[in-house]
């Protein structure tokens, strides 16, 4: 697509995409901000602050995309998917479990963000695609940080690290994988309660997004990250199996 056009379906797609992206980036800001007090060194604190700042830049960039597309970003007070993700994150904050927070934010959420942004690239207008390309590259950097942290943790405490991934897989990754499930919302979505894809999947499909590829792509990026961190392939397969189909 070379230029954003104002047909109702395109506008609906941009409204959905930018709203979800802004919501996700806003969650990212909140998450990194909650991690800062738990940082062990000033260097780590500054790094997390910078991560939050970059998420802010992404949010502003997505608002620009929405503005160019002539759509208003929806700001829901509660979202059935993100609420669950944030609740899981809060639990780990309450436990002051910084590693658990890294796994949720830098591994699971960033893997998800990378997949969503990169999946949308082919159907975006040129300016939006440029903005999203920059954001996706940033998210890949966050993911790389997560991999480094996870690898270090796994080499020191394999059992404790696996426990953290178990938690993040069950409480966060499975929720995200649920959102990208294709048939999950027929007749009524078991998570958001909306009928027949009215949560937006149909709009994505109508815009030419390969919705069916979301889940396998998420499994690939998320699984690669876990294996790169040194987690055993058999454990990774079990985690992925719990998200798929």
């Amino acid at each position, binding site marked *: 697509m070379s230029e954003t056009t104002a047909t109702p379906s395109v506008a609906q797609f941009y409204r959905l995409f930018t709203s979800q992206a802004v919501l996700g980036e806003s969650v990212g800001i909140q998450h990194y901000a909650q991690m800062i007090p738990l940082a062990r060194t000033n260097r780590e604190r500054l790094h997390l602050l910078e991560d939050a700042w970059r998420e802010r830049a992404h949010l502003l960039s997505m608002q620009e995309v929405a503005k160019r597309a002539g759509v208003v970003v929806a700001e829901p007070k509660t979202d059935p998917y993100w609420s669950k993700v944030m609740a899981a994150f809060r639990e780990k904050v309450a436990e002051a479990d910084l590693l658990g927070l890294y796994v949720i934010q830098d591994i699971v959420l960033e893997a998800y963000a990378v997949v969503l942004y990169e999946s949308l690239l082919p159907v975006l207008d040129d300016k939006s695609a440029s903005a999203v390309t920059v954001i996706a590259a940033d998210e890949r950097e966050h993911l790389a940080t997560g991999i480094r942290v996870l690898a270090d943790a796994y080499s020191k405490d394999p059992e404790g690290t696996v426990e953290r991934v178990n938690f993040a897989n069950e409480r966060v990754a499975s929720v995200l994988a649920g959102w990208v499930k294709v048939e999950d919302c027929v007749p009524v979505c078991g998570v958001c309660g909306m009928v027949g894809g009215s949560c937006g999947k149909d709009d994505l499909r109508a815009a030419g997004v390969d919705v069916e590829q979301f889940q396998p792509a998420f*499994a*690939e990026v998320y699984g690669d990250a876990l294996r790169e961190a040194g987690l055993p*392939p058999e454990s990774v*397969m079990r985690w992925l*199996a719990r998200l798929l*189909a």
Partner: protein
Amino acid sequence: MKPTVAWLGHLASPLEYQVALAALRGPDLPVPALDKVAALVERLSPMPACTTEVPSLTGSSVHGVYIDAFLLIDGRDGMSLRAALRKVRAACAAAARAGAKVGALGGFTSIVGERSSADLSAEFGLPFTTGNTLTAACLAAQVESVADASARVVLVGGAGDVGSGVARILHARGYRPVLVGRRPQPLAALAEELPGVSIATWEEAAPTADVAVLVASTGPGGIDVSAVPHTTPILDAGHPPNASPGHPMTATAGRVAFALPERGGLPEFISSGCDEGEHHACMVEGAVLGLEGWFEPYSQGRGLIRPDRAAKLLDAAARHGMTPGPLRYRRDMAAEAD
């Protein structure tokens, strides 16, 4: 720990993937519907599924990783060669990334590689073996275990890599097999190379076979064996099985039995389509190469299997406690089950 061997393979059907997925998910989650599983597998990228340590009778062992290529080869769900090659390449790349020293292509991953004319070893800087030399050696040994050189051995898929290898090995041992295949030109070339070897259609050869060896790349049950006499052993090396169901003397063949613990430490994933305690010879070839430190594309496909190389590999495998599996006929297995 980096793997020495990377096994690249796939399960035999969407149903096997469904069973594996259900087992991996655990009992608290529902079993996904078969059509959903098939759609998912088609879209999944190859990935390392598990690591393993294969022990040898010599006391050494080899560390390896199994990479599932997520190839669907069922007739109905089968994917195009182009899509399959994309997956095979991705699986090869995963093997190279894992740091393996030799890759073993199992099942259709080797067939796809061979049909594509791609040189995977050169492309990924990692020697890949099709594993077909050990498969052919095992099959020839299994034929020898049930029939002497005077027997009329019918080789279905005789022009293929494994089939031509079996023909050469048996011919060197005095057998004069009958070749059956879809491609007349390579069949004729092989018959010319091996004096006394003849060519026939399956319809002609089936009723008079003393032993039938099925090594064709068909979908499940792709070869109708109803005309084969009920006393004739059918050695089915297909994965999925080539033989149509119902023949009492059909046995899974081209598999290896381990002298050491069950399946020699190789995981369930790799044993798809094998009888208990056995494993696909093509995958075992990878383990033997790893144990021996032979980091080379020992089997390169395209009809290059030679009797001396097959004998060398079979000997090496035996040193490690890996020998051609005993033939278990459906008739006997059914009787045991009763």
